[in-house]
């Protein structure tokens, strides 16, 4: 347990220090959401209607940003070699790395959502629904992204390839995240239906992600 706590603390420390990139994601999220009203025009009704979708798209793209460094940085400086020799299942180790990544990059997105909801003319119910769906859905994005990070670990510029690999797999999360947000505001289906599926997607990726990641890393030994 000490070992996993130590890893969690280290990864979070690295993320918030110079060059860590924890705030890059939330800044990018802010930028994407802030420029969309300029492109769409001052139609408040339209903004309110597509607001949840914009927030979800912004969060999805922002969550891709730090993924290419998630495992690659440990690979480059030799840390991964030592991580493989710890008295721990690799699955647990990579899961803890993903949790640290989620806490430092995705949780700030959830926290920033109420502020950005104002920019998109969302009422408090809709903002709350988006924040709740993001809190439930972004772990799925992180854990699916973890697999991509392991697959592209040895590539110098794996970032774009990672996005290409990961984005198709995140589409179900996007669909049910936006569907649940919309259901809370306009209906007609109850909020619980898509939200439950979103939670199921998250739980599934939390299980499958670390197993697939550890398998990818072991296969890629070279």
């Amino acid at each position: 347990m000490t070992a996993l706590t130590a890893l969690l603390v280290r990864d979070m420390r690295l993320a918030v220090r110079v060059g860590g990139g924890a705030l890059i994601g939330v800044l990018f999220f802010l930028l994407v959401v802030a420029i969309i009203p300029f492109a769409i025009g001052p139609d408040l009704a339209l903004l309110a209607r597509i607001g949840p979708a914009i927030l979800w798209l912004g969060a999805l793209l922002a969550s891709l940003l730090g993924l290419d460094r998630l495992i690659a940085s440990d690979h480059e400086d030799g840390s991964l070699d030592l991580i493989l020799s710890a008295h721990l299942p690799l699955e647990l180790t990579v899961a803890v790395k993903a949790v640290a990544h989620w806490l430092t990059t995705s949780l700030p997105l959830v926290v920033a959502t109420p502020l950005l909801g104002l920019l998109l003319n969302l009422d408090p119910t809709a903002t709350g629904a988006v924040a709740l769906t993001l809190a439930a859905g972004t772990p799925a994005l992180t854990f699916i992204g973890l697999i991509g990070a392991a697959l592209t670990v040895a590539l110098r510029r794996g970032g774009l390839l990672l996005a290409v690999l990961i984005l198709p797999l995140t589409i179900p999360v996007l669909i049910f995240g936006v569907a649940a947000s919309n259901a809370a505001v306009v209906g007609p289906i109850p909020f619980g239906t898509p939200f439950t599926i979103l939670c199921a997607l998250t739980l599934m990726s939390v299980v499958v992600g670390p197993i697939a990641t550890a398998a990818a890393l072991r296969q890629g030994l070279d």
Partner: protein
Amino acid sequence: MRLKATDLACIRGGRQVFSGVNFAIQAGEALVITGPNGAGKSTLLRLLAGLLRPLAGALTFEGGDPELTLPEQAHYLGHQDALKPALSVTENLDFWVRFLGGRPPDLAATLADVGLASIAALPAAYLSAGQRRRLSIARLIAVKRPIWLLDEPTAALDVAAQAMLADLMRAHLAGGGLIIAAVHGAIGLEKAAELRLGGNR
């Protein structure tokens, strides 16, 4: 404890790096791997550390902890230092000690042993190559593991640090440990068996 390799062979990038490698060492013994560049010294060490898979042959380690695999009982000191530039010297060491399963010992004393006590709070980004190497070596003494796999351990070390490393290695052997080191020059171990790679080409 006894580490034995039988008929090891390894292929990397489609090229056979070595084949038919045999050795056996007991607790308290050191093995020095020598050979020209590209002979497979680092490859053999990475193979022992579980970071590569052998194409053929077998590795057996008797007398260790039956719950743990060979790589889990070995320290691998490679060319990369596994240090994070944004963390301080103490934070780097503290993380590896906890993560590799050691009880958090007196880190200050360990850093003093490798001569880094005065810069314990400095971010690792500002360390010289030799200081980074010393910090990596601190890991070996802070976490007890019976097998040391050292890849050119004296690289970048000054004369004093080389003597310090030799003392540490002697103490490790005296405590019943095993050392396998890939080297080009002398590393200060008097009674070490030698395994020469790449001599037959």
